[in-house]
């Protein structure tokens, strides 16, 4: 055994890394879950109205986070591939998956949060600013629901918070004096949130710096990863469904339908796909859903070809005619007799398709036709970073690196998968 490092070790390492760095946050999430359960019992209607996307997201990723290690131990027998050797592609793939699943735990900073532009604009990586928070009007007789809302806003940060003040530096005298780009401001000590009489002043740390609106690049990168992967998965699944169904119909039925579908595939293949995507998005408007649908529709051709040619050969085989004679329905034929046979080439194709889709999504966002401005996406981060290229290299470097590594990982694991699943190719 040359190297003892296995995939499972990397998973454990990442898990403990997140757990140790974000111990406090994880604890906050846990207590939030507990108090939400309490709220469910006492005040069901308001508990349900309060359930937002980000809340569900945070709860789900916390639960998955807790279950990760037990699950890998319980299903040790089933998950044998976790005990194979670790290489770069697998390591990055697992990093991506964990960023996708645990994004709220890795960074609870809101990717759209922007405050005190003069202080936070275009900060380089590893910089930090001072942060203090104004006291909000304390109302002691809050209802359970309102109390919960307050508690959740402290953990899952909203995109707008008027009470937070960011400053370059500060001085404590009888008042708090803080500096924003050489401008001094004063504030009463009493109006700040304080512990035992001393105002709480925290350092807000920007691991990867900030963008032109003072937003945390790290948080944007983490959430951008989720967007890219969501678009990729959605489009690949859609392509898979279209490709499999059309391929099955064309191969199984044949005839005129086959000819028509072939011509149709020809157009799609004979087309610089990006022009088509750009046209459709321009005419129908672009949103997260329309990007997924358009990318899904534009990627099924290779799957169609594979499925069709395989179905044509399977149709001649004895086991297939037997299944037909037994009286299986079309869907059963497809799912039980054909899919298991063709799954290997289809899977390899889907991995490559995924990398194509991620690339296309980033390119569309770069052109300004992507998922819209409401989500940070790698492509749009690069495109807005290009304007500040003389001042801020980090705006392009980190999303660009993320994109390159993701594409490389999927391309190389697709190649590896092809070699493993297709032993005929080996010499």
């Amino acid at each position, binding site marked *: 055994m040359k190297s003892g490092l296995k995939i499972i070790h990397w998973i454990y390492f990442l898990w403990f890394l997140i757990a140790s760095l974000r111990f406090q946050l994880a604890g906050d999430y846990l207590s939030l879950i507990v108090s939400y359960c309490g709220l469910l019992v006492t005040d069901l209607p308001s508990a349900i109205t309060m359930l937002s996307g980000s809340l569900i997201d945070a709860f789900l990723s916390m639960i998955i986070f807790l279950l990760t290690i037990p699950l890998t131990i319980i299903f040790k027998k089933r998950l044998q591939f976790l005990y194979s050797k670790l290489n770069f592609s697998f390591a990055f793939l697992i990093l991506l998956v964990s960023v996708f699943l645990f994004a709220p735990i890795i960074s609870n900073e809101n990717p759209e949060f922007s405050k005190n532009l003069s202080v936070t604009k275009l900060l380089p990586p590893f910089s930090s600013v001072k942060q203090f928070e104004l006291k909000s009007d304390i109302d002691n007789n809050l209802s359970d629901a309102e109390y919960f809302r307050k508690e959740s806003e402290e953990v899952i940060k909203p995109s707008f918070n008027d009470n937070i003040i960011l400053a370059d530096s500060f001085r404590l005298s009888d008042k708090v004096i803080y500096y924003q780009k050489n401008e001094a401001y004063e504030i009463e000590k009493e109006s700040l949130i304080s512990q035992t009489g001393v105002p709480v002043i925290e350092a807000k740390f920007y691991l990867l710096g900030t963008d032109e609106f003072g937003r945390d690049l790290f948080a944007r990168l983490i959430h951008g990863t989720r967007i890219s992967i969501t678009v990729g998965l959605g489009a690949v699944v859609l392509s898979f469904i279209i490709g499999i169904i059309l391929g099955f119909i064309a191969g199984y039925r044949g005839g005129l339908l086959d000819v028509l579908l072939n*011509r*149709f595939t*020809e*157009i799609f*293949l*004979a*087309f*610089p*796909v*990006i*022009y*088509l995507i*750009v*046209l*459709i998005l*321009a*005419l*129908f*408007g672009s949103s997260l859903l329309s990007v997924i649908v358009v990318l899904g529709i534009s990627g099924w051709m290779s799957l169609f070809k594979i499925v069709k040619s395989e179905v044509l050969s399977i149709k001649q085989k004895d086991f297939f005619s037997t299944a037909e004679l037994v009286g299986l329905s079309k869907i059963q034929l497809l799912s039980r007799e054909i899919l298991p046979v063709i799954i290997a080439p289809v899977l390899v194709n889907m991995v490559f398709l995924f*990398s194509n889709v991620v*690339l296309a999504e*980033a*390119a569309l966002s*770069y*052109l*300004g*036709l992507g998922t819209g401005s409401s989500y940070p996406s790698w*492509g749009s981060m*690069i*495109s807005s*970073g*290009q304007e500040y*290229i*003389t001042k801020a*290299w980090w705006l*392009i470097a980190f999303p*660009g690196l993320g*994109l*390159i590594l993701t*594409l*490389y990982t999927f*391309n*190389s694991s697709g*190649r590896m998968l092809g070699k493993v699943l297709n032993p005929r190719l080996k010499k």
Partner: protein
Amino acid sequence: MKSEIVKTLLTRILSSLLTLFLLVSFLFIIIRLSPGDPTDKYISAKLGSELSERIAEKFSLNQPVTDQYLSFVANAFSGDMGVSYNYRLPVFEVIWEYFSFTLVFASISFILQMYLSIWLALWVIKKRKKWLDKFVTNSSLFIYSIPAFVLGVALIYIFSVNLNLFPISGMKSLDYDDLSFFSQVLNKIHHLVLPLITLTAAGVALFYKYIKESMDDVLNQTFIINLRSSGVNENIILRKHVIPNALRPLISVAGVELGILLGGALITEVIFSLPGMGRLTVDSIFSRDYPLVIGCVFTAGAVMILANFLADIIKLKIDKRLVKGILN
């Protein structure tokens, strides 16, 4: 044999025309399905129904859909794609002006891709080092994974912003008109270096993979061993026997690669603000110049169909055995 080739060619031309026809129909369907109609740009609902009816009549929107479809197809095939809103010129004229740039730009890049990838594969094969082979294969996969816009922006950052070697964007300098002819050419080349690298890198990596695999295949065949044992010079074997045989799969990929090239050209032209068809498409989308957008998409599709047709003919020229295979 000859009549068979003519028959193949005719069938191939017919199927290309059919694909073109389907493309036009597809465009028509998309446009009709999309929300809003072309009169929205000229009138608002407040102006009364009579006026809007008159405008609809001007746009032939009151005719049955089948008539609209037929005239759309007829116009598209006669090169009449309407008048651009922004340029106030027939769409075809506008596109022609921009398309010539993209054609030259993409062709140079295509030739570079072919040449560099073959040269690289030959170099690796001649060196006969296993680690080198592995290294080049892996790094070509890595280069292939770099999106054009990341590479382009990175090149701008390194060579234009930091080293100040090449201009950031555009096609000519401000003092272009005052230069002599020779320095005008130099000026253009100077502006095109970074865009060409951006457009070419991924293609070289892709072609390298195909050409290397097919060269390895050819090298393992018996006639090569025969040539070697007869004492033929290794260079001559490679140049005269391996390359021609290895090129065949490359040509079938080349048609598909052209689509990637056009897409890549679109992105590259946007990054470096070059006056090409890709940037024209993107600009016309943002200025809602729909006749121009549709004209660009149609042109891109037509170019692809033409290129695939040419690739098939070249294949036929190289290898007569393929007469049957092309029709599929």
